[in-house]
């Protein structure tokens, strides 16, 4: 058996960097929603600042991919893996942007806005985080079944969004919600819905890296 010890080591390091980036992004989403619900602009500002670290991860991983392509001239599954990483970091970076976007909403909101708490938002963020975690897990283990579950779970996130939309519309009709808050809440929910879509993209790249073609 010929081995490519150095190459395999570099691929493992690449996976590790991707996981670290994913963990940071998940943490940022979680905290961004916390900042939104608690109207904690200090926490929100910290997340906005930390988004630069997510961006730096993207640049660094991109550089690593290019270096590996140059040095190792990968083919077949190695080539697909590196190509997938290059695409996945774009989605992770966008998820990071949305975490920062939610945090910006917190900063925009005035302290005297009366919050209107909808439990579905928390469920939505839990589900989105779970989807990203599963997508990354499916990548590390090269497990197509987990990736397929992520794609299925997007419906759950979409359903929560629709529920929130109805609840907010009803609250507006009943005059139970502050107008600005209603807008911000819907925007936050939309960002979470988009995060679910990016998690699906990641899962689709995982499937591509495993089977070699795109899912129809």
């Amino acid at each position: 058996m010929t081995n490519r010890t150095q190459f395999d080591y570099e691929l493992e390091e690449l996976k590790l960097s991707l996981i670290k980036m994913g963990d940071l992004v998940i943490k940022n989403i979680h905290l961004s929603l916390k900042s939104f619900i608690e109207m904690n602009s200090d926490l929100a500002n910290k997340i906005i600042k930390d988004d630069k670290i997510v961006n730096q991860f993207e640049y660094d991983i991109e550089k690593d991919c290019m270096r590996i392509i140059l040095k190792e001239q990968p083919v077949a599954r190695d080539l697909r893996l590196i190509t997938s990483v290059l695409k996945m970091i774009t989605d992770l970076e966008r998820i990071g942007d949305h975490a920062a976007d939610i945090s910006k909403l917190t900063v925009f909101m005035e302290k005297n806005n009366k919050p209107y708490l909808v439990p579905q938002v928390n469920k939505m963020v839990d589900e989105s985080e779970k989807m990203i975690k599963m997508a990354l897990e499916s990548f590390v283990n090269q497990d197509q079944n987990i990736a397929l579950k992520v794609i299925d779970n997007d419906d759950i996130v979409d359903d929560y969004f629709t529920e929130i939309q109805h609840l907010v519309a009803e609250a507006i009709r009943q005059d139970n919600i502050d107008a600005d808050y209603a807008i911000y809440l819907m925007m936050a929910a939309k960002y979470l819905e988009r995060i679910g879509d990016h998690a699906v993209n990641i899962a689709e790249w995982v499937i591509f890296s495993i089977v070699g073609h795109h899912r129809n």
Partner: protein
Amino acid sequence: MENSVFTISNLNLHYGTFQALNNINIDIEKNKVTALIGPSGCGKSTFLRCLNRMNDLIDKCKISGNVLYHSEDVYQKNYDVISLRTKVGMVFQKPNPFPMTIFDNVAYGPRCQGLKNKNQLYKIVESSLKKAALWEEVKDRLKESAMGLSGGQQQRLCIARAIAMEPEVILMDEPTSALDPIATLKIEELINDLKKNYAIVIVTHSMQQAARISDNTAFFLSGELIEYNQTDVVFTAPKESKTEDYITGRFG
């Protein structure tokens, strides 16, 4: 296949008791570059040499199955091997110009076929050297010895020598393995150009070369054809795990 120049079916080849090729089935398409890859001793060069019966001279070499060149079996009795080799030219790993002038090297084949007219010979030499992308470099020294050319030039001269016979297929056995990167690049550019008029079958040990220049790739292992597919499929999503292991360098 409609565009095939060669259709090979159930090809077996033994060197004495050693079976070098085991039940090979493959079509070689015209106007395409077909790359043969695989580890040393896998049978790819042996297979290549079957296409113009270069194995005939090897003792104890026994062949069964069909190698159809335009639907005619080249191994049938009384088949005109000389004519086959004019239609199926060959370029080897080490450039092998004849120890004569550049002009005479290229004119050698047509002369052997009885062509004596100087004007016609000159035209063939000029056009062959042009097709081999060597003309500009040698047009002022056609009467000089071919042995004075660089390795890359010598290899292009050998290609010109093959082209002078107006072949339909050009077989290349690791044609760039003895060349530097610039000469290699020139040969690769040339191959890309030549496929407009010829079918090219190339044995190469360079995965990147196969990926760069070929349309179809055949992976051989221990005398068997493991996978034959479009090159981009073979190098991005091969169907067989043996192919995957070999091309990704995790092999054995």
